[in-house]
């Protein structure tokens, strides 16, 4: 009874009363929120640059609007011959990478889950996380060394026996990118599925064993359904990043030989602005805005589909 009255009193408090009692909470959250307004929301306002004909002397706001009702920078990008190539490379790399890395992580999680020897399982697990800590630069350095066709251990093997120059040929770039990514991230990616597997009801397994199910059947009918909600959420999160794939790694991996397959939207927008002799900021901003918008739309669509199919959306 007394608890109920207390709640009612709590509800009757006005916002001002609450604020006076708990102003410290607002003072705390003010710091991160202000930082977000400066470093996340101010740049969002800055995308207005994409619709402008930027004059450094006038600043963003006072620069005149771009031609074609402000959409000139977008039109230039879409009609540029680089656009199709960049878009294709971006989509190929992210879909390929998603299709490979997710199943690999799930298989590793299942595999670890059914390794009976605990010490061995822990050892494999620990080793598999290890590459995750290697920095992009060092990682790409290692790739370049190992796949070098003269001095690298794998590269020289392929070059001498099969005549394949892995680093020197653009057509191997996507596989090199994706599988090296699996090497680096599979152990870490498996953690989340192991968490899902740990939540599987053991009684279901026991019941399945009594019914005579084999191990593979148990994995298929008990474990996989338990993993699906997690997999769907990971898919949604990955979907949003389709156009923003790991450009740090791609940029570091780029060389003269693979540029045809390795130029993605992010690296292109970086090159036309910050490293160009004639930096084109509005153009690059328009490309960035295009990317962000596509990302946002993809997240919303996947989330909606996931909600309809299984009720496991996250927004």
């Amino acid at each position, binding site marked *: 009874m007394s608890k109920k009255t207390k709640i009612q009193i709590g509800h009757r408090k006005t916002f001002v009363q*609450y604020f006076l009692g708990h102003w410290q909470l607002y003072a705390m959250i003010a710091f991160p929120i202000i930082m977000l307004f400066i470093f996340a929301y101010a740049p969002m306002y800055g995308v207005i*640059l994409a619709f402008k004909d930027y004059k450094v002397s006038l600043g963003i706001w006072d620069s005149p609007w771009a031609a074609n009702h402000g959409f000139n920078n977008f039109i230039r990008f879409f009609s540029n011959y680089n656009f199709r190539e960049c878009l294709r490379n971006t989509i190929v790399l992210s879909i390929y990478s998603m299709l490979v890395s997710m199943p690999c992580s799930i298989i590793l999680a299942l595999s670890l889950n059914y390794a009976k020897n605990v010490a061995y399982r822990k050892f494999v697990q620990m080793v598999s996380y290890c590459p995750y800590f290697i920095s992009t630069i060092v990682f790409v350095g290692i790739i370049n060394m190992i796949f070098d066709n003269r001095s690298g251990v794998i590269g020289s093997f392929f070059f001498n026996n099969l005549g394949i120059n892995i680093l020197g040929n653009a057509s191997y770039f996507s596989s090199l990118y994706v599988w090296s990514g699996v090497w680096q991230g599979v152990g870490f990616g498996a953690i989340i599925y192991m968490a899902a597997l740990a939540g599987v009801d053991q009684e279901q397994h026991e019941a399945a064993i009594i019914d005579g199910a084999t191990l593979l059947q148990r994995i298929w009918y008990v474990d996989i359904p338990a993993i699906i909600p997690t997999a769907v959420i990971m898919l949604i999160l990955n979907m949003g990043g389709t156009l923003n794939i790991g450009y740090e790694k791609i940029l570091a991996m780029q060389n003269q030989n693979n540029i045809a397959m390795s130029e993605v939207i992010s690296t292109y927008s970086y090159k036309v602005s910050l490293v160009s002799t004639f930096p084109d900021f509005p153009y690059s901003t328009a490309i960035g805005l295009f990317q962000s918008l596509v990302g946002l739309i993809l997240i919303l669509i996947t989330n909606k589909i996931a909600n309809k199919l299984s009720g496991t959306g996250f927004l």
Partner: protein
Amino acid sequence: MKRKKITQDTIVYFINYILLTVLLVVVLYPLIYIISCSFSSGDALMSGRVKLFPVDLTLQSYQAVFKYQSIWTGYRNSIIYAIVGTLISMVLTLFAAYPLSRDDFRGKKIFTVIILFTMMFSGGLIPTYLLVKNLDLMDTIWAVVLPGAVNAYNIIVARTFFANTIPKELQEAAEMDGCTDFRFFVRIVIPLSTPIIAVLSLWVVVGLWNSYFGPMIYLNSQEKYPLQLVLRRILLLSQVNLNQSNIDPETIRKNQYLGEMLKYGTIIISTLPLMIVYPFVQKYFVKGVMIGSVKG
């Protein structure tokens, strides 16, 4: 029927062990190869004679690393950036996470939306670059440390942890006794949350230590370069400066070898700190990912 099932399961378990062992070899081999290379002679490296174990065992590559001044400047800078950046980021993250974890916090929804939206949409490279430039942060530590300091994902993880571990009754009792929110946060919440603070700090440290793109676009002076940018010059651009004033062919050849050896030495030296810390903290890592997965 039953026997058939048992044999099939045994085979599957067996194949599973083979699979894990293959994975183990695939992950470990490149790491061992690089370590072996770092102990091999330049001649063995250039001719590709190293397969698994060091060839012509030598410590020359490490000697080259220790003599290479900019690596150590980079090391020092990276440590400073990592410590300052992590402190700022953690204070901001926890300051946002705690109010959001409180059920009674009014305005929780709007603040959550403000924070989550940054996960889904961003201004992009150029607007952020111009902002940093306009704030006069170019070529300072703040350009490296501040733009990514507030991370929505980390806030959500910390919030979920607080909401699940700090008993509501405790907070209500403290409030009854006249304990202010901030005091409660510092005296009770923080000490109870060491695991999550460890995980998030680790994520932030690793992120700062390994990042190169931000420093690359914001820093101009070489003496401010973090380790990763120095490594980029050595490993990817092969710009090694070994005082090649001598044009004697023999010296040039030797320097070429030394440059190659330097690469392997730097890889080991730069990755060592994280690799040493890692076995001790990996259990926290797992925990952090799991908390994050509970509520996306």
